[in-house]
């Protein structure tokens, strides 16, 4: 693969990003995953932040999680990277995995479930080259994939929320990956098998791209909602986990994360997904851990909190500090 890279660069057969070419020319370094993050997307977080892009206005709320995102941003503010690769469970596709395939998307995102909270004007750029590489490698691996090249397409609110909370300046191009709902069609096991393979090729494509990348899985942990909403949505006196069992599951997963036991998360994914009705059903967490080569070093818990009863953790696996994982 490296040879084909050189051939393409030397013979001008590929117009990949300048950054990648420069890195190859200077020291022939491979790409790098600087960090992988669990970065949940409830629109309540953007609502509570009151950014100019969002129409509704809040009196705050969900501070533990918003401060968690602050800590995550601080952790990466001095880290150089070129692109963000993000998988959102709210772009749900049943016919394989899809990728946003145009350079720019600009529109208004209105959450169909919480339109009272989230009406966000977005303008985001796509790293189409890196997207294409991941897409092609996934296709080679036998996964069903498709590029999304319809300019009228509205980007899902999960992508927008995580994109905003992670990088409110929107100054990094994105690779946006859909959530293939294979869990709904088959089982958690089949979903995980496919997502682990997608993670493997994602990693391979990133390393071959010569780019530095942050990888984000945009999902909650336990995902049982309250079915009522308080009159003031940001009334934190009403916010807590839906049940003790959900709390226990979330803490169990966080314990594995903090103690570097990613393999145990994957091993227990079927039970976790079923019993905690976890949003890992969208495949994001399995894909992330596979993309990070199933880390054995601890993840950093930047924050945990509930949103209408669902459990949400903001976690960073700082792969840049664990070079052995990049080999």
């Amino acid at each position, binding site marked *: 693969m490296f040879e084909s890279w050189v051939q393409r660069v030397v013979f001008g057969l590929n117009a990949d990003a300048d950054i990648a070419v420069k890195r190859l020319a200077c020291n022939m370094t491979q790409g790098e995953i600087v960090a992988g993050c669990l970065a949940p997307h409830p629109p309540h977080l953007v609502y509570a932040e009151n950014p100019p892009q969002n129409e509704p206005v809040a009196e705050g709320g969900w501070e533990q999680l918003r401060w968690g995102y602050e800590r995550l941003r601080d952790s990466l503010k001095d880290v150089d990277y070129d692109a963000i690769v993000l998988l959102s469970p709210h*772009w*749900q*596709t*049943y*016919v*394989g995995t*899809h990728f946003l395939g145009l350079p720019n998307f600009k*529109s*208004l995102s*209105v959450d*169909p*479930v*919480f*339109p*009272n909270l989230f*009406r966000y004007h977005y303008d985001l750029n796509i790293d189409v080259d890196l997207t294409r590489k991941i897409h092609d490698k996934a296709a080679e691996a036998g996964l*069903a994939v*498709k590029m*999304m*090249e*319809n300019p*009228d*397409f*509205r980007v*899902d609110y999960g992508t927008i929320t995580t994109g905003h909370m992670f990088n409110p300046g929107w100054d990094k191009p994105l690779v946006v990956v*859909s959530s*293939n*709902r*294979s869990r*709904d*069609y088959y089982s958690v096991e089949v979903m995980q098998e496919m997502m682990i393979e997608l993670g493997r090729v994602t990693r391979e494509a990133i390393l071959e791209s010569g780019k530095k990348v942050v990888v984000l899985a945009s999902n909650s942990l336990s995902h*049982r*909602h309250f*079915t*009522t*909403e*308080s009159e003031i949505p940001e009334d934190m006196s*009403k916010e807590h986990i839906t*049940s*003790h*069992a*959900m709390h*226990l*599951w979330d803490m169990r997963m966080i314990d594995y994360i903090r103690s570097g036991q990613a393999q145990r998360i994957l091993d227990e994914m079927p039970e976790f997904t*079923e*019993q*905690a*009705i976890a949003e890992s*059903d969208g495949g994001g967490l399995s894909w992330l851990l596979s993309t990070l080569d199933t880390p054995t070093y601890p993840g950093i818990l930047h924050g945990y909190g509930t949103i*209408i009863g669902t459990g949400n953790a903001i976690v960073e696996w700082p792969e840049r500090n664990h070079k052995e994982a990049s080999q």
Partner: protein
Amino acid sequence: MSEGGIVGSFIVPVHPHTVLVPEQNEGWQRLRNAFDEAAQRIKDSNADLLVIYSTTWPSIIGHQIQADPNPEWVMVDHDFHDLGSIPYSFNIDSEFAHAWDEANKKRGLKSRTVNYTGFPIDVGSVVALKLLNPENAIPAVIVSSNVYANRSETTVLAKSCLDVIKATGRKAVAVTAMSLSNRMFTTAIDPKDDKIHSLKDDEWNRKILEFLGEGRLEDVGQLSRTIHKQIRVQKVVAFKPMWWLAGMNENRNNLTGDVLAYEAIHGAGGAVVHLDPTPSGAGDKEYDEDDVEFFSGERNVLDAEGDAPSFDAQLSQPQQTATSSGPALWEPTTGESSVNSDAAPKPVGMYPHARRVGDLLYLSGVGPRQPGTNAIPGGPICDEQGAPLNYDIKAQTKAVVDNITRILEEAGGSIDDVLDVTSFLVDMDRDFAGYNEVWADTLGKVGPTRTTLAIRALPTPIAVEMKVIARAPKEN
């Protein structure tokens, strides 16, 4: 003003192929032709309202009703974006939407209207309105499908819609935007190769359509959970649009059905079905579920039959049962002379349903909760946050008497054995008359002594409880 009602019902598929590329597959074209025929029938019916229940608009906080009088945007499907874009501009009956929202709340439902520029109207609704109402001549209203809603909530949603239709004299057409079997091929296919995903799905679809063709809508509703298990992906429990449509047709089983088309769309079962309210020869039906008038707040989808045991249940103490609200339920204690019944609601503490002492039976306080479901006939007195709700004291009182009867029958006796009753009401001013009326029709005819007390609260959100002493049946 004459009373309104349903002048027709339609079941239509959700995927965008019939709008964007019907010519690519003969089956898609037949579905499109059926849509066109349905549109003509709707026009001929002189309907003045289209009510769309869409399975591709999920909601979490109750149900949402579109109330933007003129929503406009360009819809692109999440999966089939390569087929093209569908610009839309719809004529929504905002006034009806608000009235339905209010009616929902009166029947105990969580509900809200949405009116936001750029709100993403779902693919199922867009396809239905583009093809059934191509000139926007008939005002429409769209309602979401709540992911946690079970039959009772979905049925009551239909009843509240009918309340408004009747009160406003509307001639409404009810539409469910849905697939039958909804398992699609998980890879791209050549359009000419499209077919129903499996023989099993096809056979189930044909059985459903046989019922619908005979106008047996309620039968399909009663089979909803079974159908879901057999031919639906499991993310959203139950074949719930059939509950809604059955409710919109007052749970009738003698409609006049006409299957206009049945074809595959990327493997899923798509059908255009017309259900005319004109009575047909069928009609016999078997109820195995309650006819619910008021939603009491229990969204127990996650405990649906066949689901794996919940983690809550695994963690709970052995004798307790987790509930979504209120105190934990206990298995009745079993000791010497205890009398317990599976047909009575479970205790909320460590005690038996009744205890025999000599010739007398002492019953623990009996409320109206239903055995098995824990539902409260007539509705709870407050929601999970403690906000007061409207409830029916007569229904609650009748349910208390029924529970007393079950316990006494378990002991080998009957309601005629009741000797003395102490009744507890949480709102004497509001409820005494209704309670007294039911008493007169039931226990009043038996003739026990009675004391009625006003109290501040009971452990569960109920309005009435009775403490009973009865004559014990003779022991053999």
